[in-house]
């Protein structure tokens, strides 16, 4: 499968940065209204609930929530309720339960965690409320516990980061990983994807340092400062999100390194990180596209219209490198 094969555009011509579904494998499992056992509703008048997991305080979450709200407005959905769990998992569970109680007919959830949704499924299945989970997958049965998942493949993102890193480092040297928050499955998958791929394609690259930066710029900077003291000969830094990588770049600058001395690869695709490529400090950024609104509602419309929808809708993530950073920066969020 090539970079640009089988792109089924989401809604007509993709606007800058719109999500694109990866591949429409005809044999992939699908789900229909009949299979799921729900009732047909008109989205325009339906009660729709969106549960956000983390505060809208970083570019990814802001873009994600905004995209859902914008698309709902565009489609004329007036009855949209949004909640935010402020990173409290139990709060997200009761937020969703409360929305089910209040009679929502479609749920879009950005889950904080992949496990722990038993009570929600019990409640939702009793009322046959279709659930679309976005950006993080829930470990349960699609088309039964929930309708479908739309999002990126985090392990794949890690893998692609490894490819870029290997390329930039010339397949040898020492690399450090700035881990995301511990216990988060984004962290887990982006780590395993990266490490497995490095081991496979560039066994001469050693992962010498793995410390958490909790997805925050400040901690990314602090950890990198320590790293540069204890491993002054480091060649590459893999940031599991852009924020930590930007923190790392600040640390590199104040340690007197020059742009390009240490290769920096990260995941997310925020404007700041893409700009860092332009400036020469970062090597590559793998995108994780947060604009779920159009795709989510398109899927819902198809579902309520009786059409089959995929059980696992993996979107195609862009990638920024020295070649395209300048031109594509407008697509970054």
């Amino acid at each position, binding site marked *: 499968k090539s970079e640009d094969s089988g792109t089924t555009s989401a809604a007509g011509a993709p606007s800058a940065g719109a999500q694109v579904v990866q591949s429409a494998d005809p044999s992939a499992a699908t789900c229909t209204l009949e299979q799921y056992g729900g009732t047909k509703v008109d989205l325009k008048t339906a009660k729709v609930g969106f549960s956000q997991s983390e505060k809208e305080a970083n570019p990814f979450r802001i873009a994600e929530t905004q995209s859902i709200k914008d698309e709902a407005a565009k489609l004329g959905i007036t009855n949209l309720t949004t909640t935010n769990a402020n990173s409290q998992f139990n709060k997200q569970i009761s937020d969703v339960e409360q929305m089910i109680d209040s009679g929502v007919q479609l749920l879009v959830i950005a889950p904080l965690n992949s496990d722990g949704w038993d009570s929600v499924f019990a409640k939702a299945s009793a009322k046959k409320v279709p659930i679309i989970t976005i950006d993080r997958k829930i470990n349960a049965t699609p088309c039964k516990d929930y309708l479908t998942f739309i999002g990126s493949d985090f392990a794949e993102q890690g893998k692609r980061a490894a490819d870029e890193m290997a390329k930039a480092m010339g397949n040898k040297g020492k690399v450090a990983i700035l881990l995301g928050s511990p216990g988060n499955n984004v962290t887990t998958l982006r780590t395993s994807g990266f490490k497995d791929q490095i081991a496979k394609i560039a066994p001469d690259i050693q992962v010498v340092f793995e*410390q958490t930066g909790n997805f925050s710029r400040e901690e990314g900077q602090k950890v990198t*400062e320590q790293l540069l*003291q204890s491993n*002054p000969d480091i060649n590459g830094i893999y940031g599991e999100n852009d924020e930590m990588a930007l923190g790392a770049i600040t640390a590199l600058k104040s340690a007197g390194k020059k742009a390009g001395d240490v290769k920096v690869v990260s995941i997310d695709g925020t404007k700041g990180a893409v700009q860092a490529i332009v400036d020469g400090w970062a090597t590559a950024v793998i995108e994780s596209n947060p604009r779920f609104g159009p795709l989510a509602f398109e899927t819902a419309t198809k579902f309520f219209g009786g059409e089959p929808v995929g059980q696992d809708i993996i979107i195609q993530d862009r990638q920024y490198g020295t070649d395209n950073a300048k031109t594509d920066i407008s697509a970054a969020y």
Partner: protein
Amino acid sequence: MSTETVAARPVVDAARLKAWLPKYGVYAAIVLLVVYNIFFTPYFATWSNLRIQLIQVAPIVIVALGMALVIGTEGIDLSVGSVMALAAAFIPLYLGYGVVAAILVALLAGVAVGLINGVLVAKVGLQPIVATLALFVGGRGLAVVISEGKLVDIRNPDFLYLGSGDLLGIPVLVWIAALMVLIVGFVMRRTVFGRRLLAVGGNRPAAELAGLPVKRVLITVYVVCAVLASIAGLLSVARIQSSDASSVGLLIELSAITAVVVGGTPLTGGKVRVLGTVAGALLMQLVIATMIKHNLQPSTTEMVQAVIILIAVYVARERKTR
């Protein structure tokens, strides 16, 4: 004075150690850790490493100083992290009017939060932990609202100088922290305010009856603590070179309280150890640095921190004779 009742002291070494440890235990622990690192951590004994450790500990020291004062009045301030966030939120908004204006606004935000805390504690009579809990919850929310959830890159070189510049070969950040330590130390030692603060913490009804302006002292203490926190907040912004209200100063209240208590200031008030607080912050910084440099996992780091806190506080605890 009853000099004759003073027992002829049999100079037992164990007893001397017992008296010595609570006072100087933290310093001893720092020395031990440094010695360990010199032998077992590569590149530890370098100037640039010392520099990084001092830079990283500076904001915590500044916040911990304010916390120590609040704890000296038998209070506690959970809102310091939110104050840092508020300061961070205001910086980019006012940097257009110049560095001084931005700093002033950030400090004013601190004054405002401190006044609210102080009034809630001194006038309304709330218990400090609850009074400051409200702003702990709401303050950061407000900061993120003000910054519209956006992380803003800071490019003003004058402002960034505060976070990454050097003066006489020593980071400006470290100079500022040292200055704060000196000021707070001086205030506690030599000023009317310092002594009143200790009296209020030692026995508030007595201080009231003795005619001390107890409420004013309390409000001032919370304002000072919040202003110190906002200084730490703006320095953090200058250091990270960006303002992110949602993450700056997260959980710093616990680090600050730990530094204060590990440094030998009792939570029961009436006593403030300024240098001990600095040492407490430094000790915790060294522990974390050691863990990171040896690439240990978060679980190990956390458990080791727990044990070190317990040992440090055990050694430094107030010995009651009964």
